[in-house]
């Protein structure tokens, strides 16, 4: 007759939890820092002299499995110099409602012009608002998410596993 003591043991297990602090993180108030290599909202980058890194080669659009990037290139002229290369992206749009955040665009880019940032709070009320234009991607994101300390989180055994 081990049924009865084993059943009572089950009660003990649940009762013990009542006196512990819940492990739930209260999301909107507390945002857990994301990993440094977390793939979130895209960003386009400039050189320090202000010229855009993107040369409008469309390799990111070719690599995109969700087909959500649209690039229309144009030639740089001496009086309208936008990028460092021969051409620049006249239109650069990412449809964030289709993007799957795989990061292939980042890998495909020969000039590190596009990277995936850490921001994930990018919901909108309209689908139209989810089509990000070049201006939006070049500007710093409106909502920022805290980034974890790489020394604590970007390790084989992340910080949260032994500090539960």
């Amino acid at each position, binding site marked *: 007759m081990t049924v009865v003591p084993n*059943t009572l043991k089950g*009660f003990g297990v*649940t009762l013990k*939890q009542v006196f512990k602090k*819940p492990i*739930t993180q*209260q999301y909107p108030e507390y945002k857990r820092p994301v990993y440094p290599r977390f793939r979130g909202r895209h960003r386009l980058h400039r050189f320090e002299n202000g010229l855009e890194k993107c040369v409008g080669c469309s390799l990111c659009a070719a690599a995109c499995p969700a087909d959500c990037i649209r690039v229309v290139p144009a030639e740089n002229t001496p009086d309208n110099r936008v990028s460092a290369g021969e051409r620049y992206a006249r239109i650069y749009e990412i449809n964030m409602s289709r993007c799957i955040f795989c990061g292939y665009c980042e890998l495909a880019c020969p000039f590190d012009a596009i990277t995936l940032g850490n921001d994930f709070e990018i919901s909108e009320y309209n689908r139209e608002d989810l089509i990000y234009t070049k201006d939006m991607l070049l500007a710093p994101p409106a909502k920022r998410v805290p980034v974890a300390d790489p020394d604590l989180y970007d390790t084989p055994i992340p910080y949260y596993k032994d500090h539960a």
Partner: protein
Amino acid sequence: MHEPWWITIPKAFLVINVVMVFFALTTWLERKLLGRMQNRYGPNRAGPKGLLVPIADLLKLIRKEAFAPSAAKQPLYILAPVVSMFTALAAFSVIPWGAGWTVGGYYVAGSVVNVPISLILIFALGSIGIYGFIVGGWASESKYSLLGSMRTCAQLVSYEVSLALAVLGVVMMGQSLSLQDIVDKQQATMWFFIPQAVGLVVFMLGGIAETSRPPFDLPEADTELVAGYHTEYSGMRWGLFQAAEYINMLTLSGLCVTLFFDGYHFPWVHSLDKFGPVWFVLKLFTLVSLFIWLRASQPRLRYDQLMRFGWKVLLPAATVNALVTAALVVAVH
């Protein structure tokens, strides 16, 4: 001491509303306790400590479309949850909340009605309530519902036998079927959970099965049947079934408090007896918390285990308990 008949009406109104509030509180308590037992917070957004969650539930259920399958047998389909809810609420009318008070020259008894066969009345109402579950499943013309109501039928009928036999010991010791008399008898002798410990265990286990609470929640085992007999119900009709189930749990806890834990009396200190409802509610919610604790701790039984446990463990235990009690009661007199 006799109370005028019309006092029953405001008393019934009060008790129904108090029971409905307790039902809402029980759903909140269940979520909160389950949450804490699973290392979660439970509801904590709507209102202080999430206390407005039951109100939000009510608003959601009332505003939801009352969908009905086109093949459903119409009058029965709508009547089934009503019957369940009615019997659940009506059963609470005979449970005494206090010793009785004199208000403005009128005597007010502790229960809505004090009938001499109140215990039989509760069991009879419970049996009628089962019809709500069975007819609800059958009238919705769905295989899942029908399977669910067949399970409900088998389970409730099996465990009702043990439940009634478990109470028999208390009835013999109390020498009455009136809950008021049983409470008075306990006050005169001792709380019946000491001599009727076996009866209490059988009553609690049978009661959990009667109210289809986990681990005996086979009638609506979500992982096996879609939702049992109320698969085809939505909106407030589903809400009525759910309310009936929770109120049945409250009734059962109230009955358990009355039969085994001296109802509304405070132990030893008799001067505190005028606060009867407070002690009654405290004891009631202690038992309800026990039910919730059980739900968090134990896995659901398999169907054959359920039947074996009901017929081969609980029923013999209840029968032997009743026989031994009868022999002892005769021997003492």
